[in-house]
C-alpha cells in the first residue's frame, strides 16, 4: 500500500526527525562552545567500544519481558492485519497463472511504464526540489516555518485530489502520461526539499568557505563540497520518491484513464473490475520485489547517512544571497508557483463549471440526493472519525514498536523487524483491503462489519510513517545521556519515561498529525472496506468521479476542495505548533 501521499521517509531521511524542521529534539550540546546538537548521529563517541545499544548493562528481567511481550504484540498485529490477508490473496492468486502473466508482453509494457514514469517523476522532483532545499537551508526567508508547511501541503494531499487538481489544470479528462509524471513530481518535491534541506541546514558552511578561500568559484564549491556532502540525503530521498512514484495509485487512476496503467492500478483493475485474482496476485509479487529493492537502496543510503560528516547547526550559514546565488532563489520561486498552480486550478474549478461561476457543487454536497447515500458533510464526518481511530491505533502500535526496536540488543534482529514493519508500504493497499474481506471473517466477532475495520486498515498504512518519524529521534538520543540517567538511579523504565519520551515527544506529535492527515486521504484500502452507508470523503469522491453528469463532476471537485482544505489546514497547524515549540530547546 504505497501511495505517494505517505510522508513516510521524510522525517527519517531528514536525519534526526524534528531536527530538520525547527529545533533539534534532543537539544543542543550542553557545551556552549560547540553546539553540535541536532546531529547526534554526527559525533557521539560513546566511550571505548560501547556499541550504542540502548541501555548497556542495565537490563533487569522485567525489561526482557517487555521486549518479548512488546515484540509479540507488534508482530501479532502485523501478522493478523497484514501478513495473513496478503498471504491469503497471494495463495489465492498463485494457484494458477504466474507464468501466463510473466510471459505476457502486456505485463512488461506495464512494468516498463511503471518504472519509466517513476524515474522521470523522481528526476523532476529532485530538480525542482533542490532550489527549495537551498531556500529552506541557506536563505533568510521571513516566515520560513509557514513556507516549509506550504511546501509540505502537496505531499499530504490525497492522491485522488491531486489527480483531480491536474485534471482541472489541464482542463480535460483525456489520459495524459506527462500529467502523471507532473503530478507524481508535484507530490514528492516536498520529500526532496525537506530531506535535503534537513541535511543542508546542518552542514558546516565553513567547508564551503574553505573551498572558496582555496580558489573555487561558487558553482565549483557547490559541486565539489556541498553536493557530495548532500549525496546521502539525495540518494535517500531519491529512493523514497522512486518508491512512491512507482506505486502511485490515485493519480494514475485519475489521469491515466485506463490507457496508462502502472502495476498498482493494474492490480486494482484486475481485482475489482475483472476479478482476475491470479493475475493480480502475480502482479503483486512483481511489485513487492521491486519495492523491496527500492527499500534496500534507501536503507543503504540511510546507513551511509548515519555516519555522515561532522555536522553543526550554525546561524552564520543562513545569509542573504548575493550574485549567482539569486539564480537558485529565482528557480525556487518558480517551483513554488508551479506547486500552487494545480491547487489554485482545483479551487477555481470547484466553483466554476461550463455554466459559469456557481456553488452548485457545494450545495449538492450538503444534500443527500444524487449518487451518494449520505451528504458530503456526513462523509467528511466519517473521514474524521475513522482517521482519529486510525491515529491512536497507529500511535499505540508505532510507539510500542519503536520502544521494542530501540531495546533490542541484536542489531540484526532490530534491522529485520524494522524492515518487516516497513513492508506494508510495499504492498498494494488494494491487496490488503481485498485480503481483509477474504480472511477476517474467521476471527471471532464479525470484524468485516465493524466500524473499526476501516481504521484498522488505515492504521496499518500509517504505522510505518509513525515509526519512521519517531524511531530516528529515539535512535539519535546519545546513549551516554541514558547512561547518565542510569548512574543517577533511573531504571530502564524510568529512563524510557524520563529521557526517551520527553525527547521524542514532539516527534510523537508530528507522527500523530501526519498520520491523521494521511488516514484522512487514504483511499486504496478504504475504498475496499468502507460500507456504502458510511463512505469517507475520498470514497465519496471516487464514486462521484465514476458517474457521468456535470453536477457529479462539480460535486467531486467541491469534495476535493473540501478535503484539500481540511488536509492543508491540519498540516499548517502541525507545522506551526512544531515551530512554536522549537524555541523550547
Amino acid at each position, binding site marked *: 500500500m504505497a501511495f505517494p501521499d505517505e510522508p513516510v521517509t521524510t522525517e527519517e531521511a531528514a536525519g534526526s526527525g524534528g531536527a530538520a524542521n525547527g529545533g533539534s529534539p*534532543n*537539544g*543542543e*550540546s*550542553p*557545551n*556552549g*562552545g*560547540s*553546539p553540535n*546538537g541536532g546531529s547526534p548521529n554526527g559525533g557521539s563517541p560513546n*566511550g*571505548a*567500544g*560501547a556499541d550504542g545499544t540502548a*541501555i*548497556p*548493562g*542495565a*537490563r*533487569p528481567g522485567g525489561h526482557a519481558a517487555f521486549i518479548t511481550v512488546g515484540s509479540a504484540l507488534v508482530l501479532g498485529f502485523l501478522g493478523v492485519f497484514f501478513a495473513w490477508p496478503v498471504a491469503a490473496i497471494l495463495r489465492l492468486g498463485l494457484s494458477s497463472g504466474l507464468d501466463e502473466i510473466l510471459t505476457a508482453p502486456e505485463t512488461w509494457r506495464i512494468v516498463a511504464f511503471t518504472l519509466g514514469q517513476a524515474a522521470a517523476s523522481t528526476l523532476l522532483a529532485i530538480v525542482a526540489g533542490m532550489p527549495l532545499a537551498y531556500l529552506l537551508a541557506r536563505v533568510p526567508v521571513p516566515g520560513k516555518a509557514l513556507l516549509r508547511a506550504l511546501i509540505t501541503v502537496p505531499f499530504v494531499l490525497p492522491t485522488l485530489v491531486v489527480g483531480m487538481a491536474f485534471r482541472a489544470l489541464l482542463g480535460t479528462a483525456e489520459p495524459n502520461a506527462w500529467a502523471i509524471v507532473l503530478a507524481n513530481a508535484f507530490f514528492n518535491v516536498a520529500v526532496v526539499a525537506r530531506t535535503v534541506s534537513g541535511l543542508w541546514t546542518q552542514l558546516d558552511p565553513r567547508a564551503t568557505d574553505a573551498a572558496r578561500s582555496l580558489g573555487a568559484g561558487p558553482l565549483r564549491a557547490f559541486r565539489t563540497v556541498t553536493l557530495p556532502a548532500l549525496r546521502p540525503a539525495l540518494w535517500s530521498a531519491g529512493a523514497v520518491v522512486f518508491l512512491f512514484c512507482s506505486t502511485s495509485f490515485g493519480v494514475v487512476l485519475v489521469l491515466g484513464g485506463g490507457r496508462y496503467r502502472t502495476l498498482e492500478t493494474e492490480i486494482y483493475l484486475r481485482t475489482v473490475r475483472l476479478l482476475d485474482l491470479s493475475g493480480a496476485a502475480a502482479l503483486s509479487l512483481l511489485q513487492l520485489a521491486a519495492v523491496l529493492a527500492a527499500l534496500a537502496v534507501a536503507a543503504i543510503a540511510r546507513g551511509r547517512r548515519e555516519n555522515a560528516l561532522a555536522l553543526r547547526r550554525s546561524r552564520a550559514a543562513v545569509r542573504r544571497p548575493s550574485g549567482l546565488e539569486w539564480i537558485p532563489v529565482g528557480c525556487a520561486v518558480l517551483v513554488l508557483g508551479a506547486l500552487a498552480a494545480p491547487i489554485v486550478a482545483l479551487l477555481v474549478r470547484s466553483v466554476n463549471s461550463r455554466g459559469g461561476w456557481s456553488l452548485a457543487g457545494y450545495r449538492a454536497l450538503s444534500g443527500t440526493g444524487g449518487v451518494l447515500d449520505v451528504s458530503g458533510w456526513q462523509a467528511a464526518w466519517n473521514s474524521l472519525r475513522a482517521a482519529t481511530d486510525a491515529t491512536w491505533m497507529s500511535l499505540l502500535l508505532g510507539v510500542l514498536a519503536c520502544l521494542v526496536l530501540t531495546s533490542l540488543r541484536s542489531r540484526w534482529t532490530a534491522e529485520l523487524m524494522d524492515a518487516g514493519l516497513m513492508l506494508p508500504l510495499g504492498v498494494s493497499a488494494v491487496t490488503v483491503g481485498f485480503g481483509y474481506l477474504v480472511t477476517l471473517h474467521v476471527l471471532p466477532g464479525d470484524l468485516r462489519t465493524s466500524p473499526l475495520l476501516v481504521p484498522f486498515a488505515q492504521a496499518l498504512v500509517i504505522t510505518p510513517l509513525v515509526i519512521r518519524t519517531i524511531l530516528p529521534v529515539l535512535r539519535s538520543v*546519545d546513549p*551516554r*545521556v541514558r*547512561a*547518565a*540517567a*542510569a*548512574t*543517577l*538511579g*533511573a*531504571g530502564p523504565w*524510568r529512563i524510557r519515561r*524520563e*529521557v526517551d519520551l*520527553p*525527547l521524542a515527544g514532539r516527534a510523537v506529535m508530528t507522527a500523530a498529525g501526519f498520520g491523521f492527515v494521511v488516514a484522512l486521504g487514504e483511499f486504496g484500502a478504504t475504498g475496499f472496506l468502507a460500507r456504502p452507508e458510511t463512505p469517507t470523503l475520498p470514497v465519496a469522491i471516487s464514486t462521484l468521479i465514476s458517474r457521468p453528469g456535470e453536477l457529479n463532476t462539480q460535486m467531486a471537485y467541491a469534495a476535493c476542495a473540501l478535503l484539500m482544505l481540511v488536509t492543508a489546514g491540519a498540516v499548517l497547524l502541525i507545522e506551526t505548533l512544531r515551530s512554536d515549540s522549537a524555541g523550547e*530547546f
Partner: protein
Amino acid sequence: MRSVLGSGETATAPESHREPDDGLRLEGLTVRYGGTTALSDVDLHVPRGQVLAVLGPSGCGKTTLLRSVAGLERPSEGRIAFDGVELSEVPVHRRGFGMVFQEGQLFGHRDVAGNVDFALRMRSVGRSERRDTVTRLLELVGLGGYQDRRVTELSGGQAQRVALARALAADPRLLLLDEPLSGLDRRLRERLAVDLARVLDRNRMTGVLVTHDHDEAFTLADRTAVLVAGRIEQLDTPWRLWHRPATEEVARFLGCGTVLPGHAEDETIRCELGTVPRPADCPSGTVRIGLRAAGLRAAPAGEEAPIGQPRAVVRERVHRQDHVRLTVTVPDAPGLAPLEAVTSLDDVPHLDEEVTLTLEPSGTALITET
C-alpha cells in the same frame, strides 16, 4: 597492588575483604571487545574517602575501566566489589555510583534545576527538600541562582559544574569522573580542577577520576594509577610517579623525552651527559635516567667552559613563558637522538651555536627497576 603472599594465594581473591568500609576493589578486571583487549587483569583498591586517578594516553582503556565500575560495561573476567559486595549482578541504577561524563551529558529537555533534581526524584525525595538540596548543590558548585537556566545556554565550564552537582545529588557512595575537564580551555580547567578538588575533599568523597592530564590527576587525586595499553603500569603518589617512574613507558608518558642508561655508585649516578646526586633510595648498579626538558640546562659555551662537560649544538629554539626551550644535538655522541634542553631568557644562544649542557636533578626521573 596486591601483595604477593605465597604461590597459591595470589590467584584467587581472598574473601577477607568484607569489611563494611572497604571501598572500591577491582580484582583481575579484564574487558575484551571481540578480539581486542581493552583492559587486562587490572587490580585496584580505592579506600573510602580517597580519590584515585587513572592516568593514561587516549585509548589506554581508562574510560572502559570507569564504565565497567559504573556498570555500563560488562567485564569479561574479574570482579568489582564495593564495601565487600560483589557488583556483577547489580544494574547501573542500583549501584549508587555517581558519574560525571566527559561532555556533561546533561538532559537537554530540562533546565539546570531539573537536571540536578533528576537524581533526587529517582530517590523519591520530597519536593521541598529537593528544592533546598538543589539550591545547596548549585551553590556548592558555584552556580547559585542558575536554577531556571536552560542547559543549552551554559558555557562548557558551567555545564560541567551542573553535571557535578547532578552527580552529587544522587548522594553517591562513589563518584566516577570521566575526563571531566578535558573539554575546557586551559585556564578554566585549572580553576575548575581546584574547585573540584575542594568539593571532593570537603565531602570526603570516594572517587575514581580518569584523565590524560597529569596536572588534573595530581590536583584531584590522592594516588594515581598509570594505565598503558589496558594494564596498570604503576600506582603511586604524584611524587613517586614523577621522580621514580616504574617503567620507561610511564617515564615517557610523564614527559621524559629521553631515557639514558646510568650507573649508580657512591654519591652519584653517572650517565652519558654527566652526573646527578644519588638519592638514598637508589640501589647501586645499573639504572635508567629519564630526562625532561628541564633536566638539561644549556649555556653558551664560553672559552672557560670546564673540560669534560658535554657540548651540543642548538638546532631549534622556542620561547616559553619563563624560559627558552632548545632542541640540541650532541656531536660527540652520534647515537643520541636530539635532546630537549632549557636555557634562561637572558642569554639565548643562536641557532647552530655551541652550548654546554648541565644535568639539573629536579628535571630528571630515576627508573630503578631493570
